[in-house]
Each structure stands twice: as C-alpha cells, then as structure tokens.
C-alpha cells in the first residue's frame, strides 16, 4: 500500500470527524436559537396585550349644579369637584335595575379608579364642557380588560371565575352596545407606576434608568479612559502599578451587590445623599462599570500598532500629543464599544440598586437625578412581584422595553465601531 492509499484511508476517518463536529456545532446553535425564540415568543405573547388598553364609552352629564362649579370657578374648585359621582350616575343610568349597595359597588368597579381623574383632567382642559353632556372614553378596570382581551375565560364556571356572572352580563351588554373599545396604550409610556395595573406606566422607570445611566456615563467614561491611558502609556512598570492592575481585574469580578452595600454605607449613610435617587445609583453603577471600561479601553489602546506611536514620536510629538492625536483616535472604536457594553451591563443591573432603595414604589416621574426613582429592571422585578393579573402583561412589556434598549445600545456600539474603525 503506498502513501496515497494510506492518506485516502485516513481521509475518510478525518472527514467523518469533521462532519460530526460540524453537526454538533449546528445542533447546539440551533438549540440556542430555539430557546431564544421560545423565550421571546413567550415574552412578546404575554406583553402584547399590555400595549392595548380597554375603554368604556360613557355619556356623562357635566351639570354645573351637580359638580357645584361653573366655567368661572377657580382651578382649585374645579380640581376638587366630585367627578366620581358623575361617572357613577352615568353607569347607573345604563343599568337602572341595580339597586343593592353591594351590586352598585360592583357596577362602579367597571371603570378604573383613574376614571375620575381622567374626567377631571378633561374638564380642566375643556371648561366649556361644563353644563353639557359628553361622550367620553373611560379607562376600564383591569378585570374588564381581562374579560375583553380574553385573559379571563368566560366559559369557566362562575365559582372558578374572577368576574362573576352579573358583572360579566354588564360587560357583555356594554360590548353589545358598542360601548367597549380598545386603543393603543399610550399611557403605558407616559405615566409612572401605579397600584392599578391598567394605569401603571413605564415612563418613570425609563427616565430613572436614563438619569442613572447619565450619571454612570458621566462618571465612568472619563475616569476609565484616563485611567486606561495612564496605565498603558504613562505608568512606570513597577510593583505598585502591577498591584493596581490586578485589583482592577479583580474589581470586575466582584458581585454587584457588594457595590450596592458600599453605596449604601458610603454615599447614603456617610455622605447623606438622597435615597432612591439616580445620582447614587449612577455612582454605584459607575463603580461597577469602571473596571469593565478600563479593561476594554486598555486592550483597545494596546491594540494600536506601536508603529503609529513611533511615527508620531519620531516626528517630535510629545508623549501627550502622541496619545491624544493618534493613539486615542485609533483606540476610540474599541473604547466606545467597551463603554457601551459596560453601560448595557449597568442598564440591566438590579442588585446594587436594591440596596440603595431604588426598589421603592414611586408614582411620580423623576425630573432630575436627585428625584427618587426606579429603573427598568427593578420595575420588572416590582411588577413581577405584584399579584394582580394585569401586572403579568406589564412585566413582559417592561422586559421588552428593557431588551429593546439593550439591543439598541449594542447596535450603537457596532455602528460606532464600524464608523471609527480605520485601517493602517
């Protein structure tokens, strides 16, 4: 047997191994994609209802006598008028045969707790409505929404069903009259948190995350880049610097909750900074992202070819000019990528923020970095913790928003890298 035959013989074996390896790789990737798809479909499926809202159309009679105000009343008076009664009258008008106290209470719960504020805001905006009868869409209660969206099964026996027969009857009557409609849930993006699922929105959490990340970015980016430049380009090679380097690498591996504890002890207890505020959250998260950005920036700076530095130095550029005119621009894509990935990490971080009180229930939308607020992942955590059926879809919706921001940030990272990357 000559060499060619021997090689041919072994080739079969080698190709077989190669095929097996390829198949294994393909199977594992397919599995990963499958699980990802299941996860995403589940989340999206659950989240979609959260983006529509169920309304009940009611004719309300805004009589001046009943509200005790007129167009000339002061704003305070208009604000304090009893709108709840107007809505209740309207509901009673639709179902006049309801007389028992208990049944009345059930009837009134068809509309959301927020319906009266909705009416109030409408009146404040349009004072000319006073003394007229208006048809207004009122936010439905989450139970009504559940029935309409099909989350509550109408065919279940009454004893197992959250909405009893009588209420179901009202809802079906309203549906038959065309008084129930669904619209896109803008409120989800424009309001803060609430105890009522149908009124709960994510704007507070988005802004909280935004302010927190703003603080994180403002603190960690310059410090980290400066540290990376110093360590790579200027620092003498000695034990002390080695020690610092090792510790930076170690810091990247410290559990994030430890940073939360540190934030609680140092910034809130010692420096008496405001609790639940994005500024503290930002500081804590920047402690956490600093090592990530430093490490990414250092490797980006290290990857800049030494020939570029030599070229600048050889022309008589000072060390500083070399770094800022040539090394930094060349390393920028890598640094930015590292920063954005660090930021994305910070955006998804929960544990350290729990420690500094950003887990509180906050209805108001934060206006600045010192206002109490919460962040997206904590909002997810809070809603997931709530018993109401309506919060289930809100949780998934919030996760979708969070994922959207993460993907957007990664996309920006890729874009920046492509844009600034230069060949040499």
């Amino acid at each position, binding site marked *: 047997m000559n060499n060619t035959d021997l090689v041919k013989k072994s080739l079969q074996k080698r190709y077989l191994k190669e095929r097996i390896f390829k198949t294994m790789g393909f199977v594992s990737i397919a599995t990963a994609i499958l699980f990802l798809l299941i996860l995403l479909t589940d989340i999206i499926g659950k989240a979609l209802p959260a983006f529509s809202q169920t309304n009940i159309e009611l004719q309300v009679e805004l009589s001046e006598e009943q509200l005790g105000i007129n167009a000339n009343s002061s704003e305070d008076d208009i604000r304090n008028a009893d709108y709840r009664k107007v809505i209740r009258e309207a509901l009673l008008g639709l179902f006049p045969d309801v007389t028992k106290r208990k049944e009345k209470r059930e009837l009134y719960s068809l509309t959301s707790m927020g319906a009266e504020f909705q009416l109030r805001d409408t009146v404040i905006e349009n004072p000319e409505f006073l003394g007229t009868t208006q048809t207004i869409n009122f936010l439905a209660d989450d139970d009504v929404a559940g029935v309409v969206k099909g989350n509550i099964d109408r065919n279940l026996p009454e004893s197992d069903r959250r909405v009893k027969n009588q209420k179901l009857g009202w809802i079906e009557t309203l549906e038959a009259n065309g008084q129930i409609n669904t619209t896109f849930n803008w409120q989800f993006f424009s309001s803060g948190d609430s105890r009522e699922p149908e009124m709960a929105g994510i704007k507070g959490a988005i802004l909280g995350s935004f302010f927190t990340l703003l603080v994180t970015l403002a603190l960690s980016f310059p410090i980290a880049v400066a540290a990376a430049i110093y360590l790579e380009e200027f620092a003498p090679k000695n034990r002390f610097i080695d020690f610092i380097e090792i510790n930076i690498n170690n810091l990247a591996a410290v559990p994030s909750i430890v940073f939360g504890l540190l934030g609680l002890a140092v910034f809130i207890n010692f420096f008496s900074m405001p609790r639940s505020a994005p500024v503290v959250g930002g500081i804590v998260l920047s402690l956490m992202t600093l090592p990530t950005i430093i490490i990414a920036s250092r490797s980006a700076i290290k990857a800049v*070819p030494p*020939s*570029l530095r*030599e070229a600048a*130095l*050889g022309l*008589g550029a000072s060390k500083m*000019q070399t770094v800022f005119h040539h090394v930094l621009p060349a390393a920028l894509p890598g640094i930015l990528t590292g920063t954005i990935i660090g930021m994305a990490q910070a955006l998804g971080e929960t544990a350290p923020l729990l420690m500094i009180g950003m887990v509180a229930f906050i209805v108001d939308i934060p206006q600045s970095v010192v206002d109490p607020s919460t962040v997206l992942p904590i909002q997810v955590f809070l809603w997931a913790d709530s018993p109401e059926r309506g919060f289930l879809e809100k949780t998934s919706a919030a996760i979708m928003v969070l994922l959207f921001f993460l993907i957007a940030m990664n996309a920006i990272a890729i874009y920046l890298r492509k844009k600034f990357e230069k*060949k*040499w």
Partner: protein
Amino acid sequence: MNEAVMNELAEPIMKKSSGPETEESLNIEYGETVGQPFCEQAKIKTKNVNVFYADNQAIHDISLDIGSHEVIALIGPSGCGKSTYLRTLNRMNDTIDICRVEGQILLDDEDIYHKKQDPVLLRARVGMVFQKPNPFPKSIYDNVAYGPRIHGLTRNKAELDDLVEASLTKAGLFDEVKDRLHAPGTGLSGGQQQRLCIARTIAVQPEVILMDEPASALDPIATAKIEELINELKENFTIVIVTHSMQQAARVSQRTAYFHMGRLIEVGDTDQIFTNPAHELTEKYITGRFG
C-alpha cells in the same frame, strides 16, 4: 608541474567542514573597530556607547562618527544591534523602560543624553523613517502637515500648503498625489506610503534622517525609487540607514559600518568594504558565509 598535478591542486584545498558557520562556532575575540570610525566634519559623534536592555548588553562600546551630509549604512546580521544603535541617535530608545544608554552621543558637539536636552526637540532635529511604512490614518496632506503643525513651523495656511507641497515634491511624491491630497494616506501603495513617510519627516526640516530598513517591505521598483530619493536627499540631510540588503548599502552609502553581536567591527568607505573588507567577520558577512 604537469596537468595531472594541476588538476589535483584544483581540488578543494580546505577539506574542513563545509556549510555555513554558526555564530556560536566563531570563537572570535572582538578587538578594536577596524577602519576609520572617525571623520573630520562629524555631524554626530558617538563615544563608547553601551546600550543595555535590563541586564542584557545590546551594544558594546561603540565609537563612530557620522559625517555631515553623508549617507552611512549600518549593516550586520539580525540582532547585531544596528537598529538599537540607530535608535539611540534620536533617543527613540527612551520609550522602552528597561533600556539604558551609557556613553556620549554628540549632535553638533552637544550631548543629546544630557539632562537638559529635550528629546522632543532632538527628534525634530533628527527625524526617523521606519521599516514598515506607517502613515497616520489621516489624509496625505495631514500626514505631511502634522510635524510642522505641532512644532508651529508655519504662520498661516498658505505657508503650510507650500511646505507640504515642497516636502512632497522633495520626496518625489507630489505629482502622484497632487489630485488627492485629502485622500487617506493609508490608501497609497507601499512604496508611495514610504515616500509619504519620508515627506512627513523632511517637512519638519531635520538635520539628520535615520532610516530603519526603509525599503525592506517594498518591491524592487519602489525600492529603487527610495534609493534614488536617498541619493537626492543627501544634498540637504545627513542620512544614517540601517539595511539588511548589502546591495542596497553598496548602492546608496558613502560609508558602511559593519555591526556584529552588538559590536562595531569595521567602518570604511563603502567601496573598500565591498571589495576588500579588512576584518574577517565583515568579509564573512559580505560574502554570505553567515547571517
């Protein structure tokens, strides 16, 4: 003596081991530098220069003068210290922490390693061209304008434009790139990039240009252009060139210095070095017996 005897004599005389000698097998005492390491109109004088990388001595006791407006070629096998020596001349070795230079290097009789000597100023006077063309990832114009800009050599845009054009012209590149001065310098061919780097260096108007194997990454035509350029540049600059190509050293230089194992073995007129080197090691290297 008859034909048969002659034929016998014509057989190889040395029946010793054939094949190349390794450097280890050369058990040679390195004596004083052979030839003429000193010259009258010296631009740079180096006296007893030793260079250490941590505890490793890379260069042993080199004394060599570099004459004004001459092209001197440094040749020698890899790792012989010629590049290290070249880099001591504009203190590029400063960037390496573990590198230590002893001895005296005088540029126009000023010690360049004196505490008061600013390496940045020195590098403006002693420019450098590197082995691999390394233009900045900027436009051709900005590449050439960078040096004058940081040193503040021109007062206004028009002057800078003139300087850029003059430098590119001197480097023989202007005609090739005049239509695309604002195109990236990295888009040029290898030879053009290297001439751009030379243009960038001469834009700072140095007195000495150090070239570290400037043509080793280029094809023969581009190499010939660089060599022609070196020939023209020697009118205005003193040029020290390190090269692996002996033919190149023979073509471009007036004097040649042979380095071996961190020592300066022989210095002499290029003509003499390439026809009749005085030192055995130079002879061995030049005729291709090692290295």
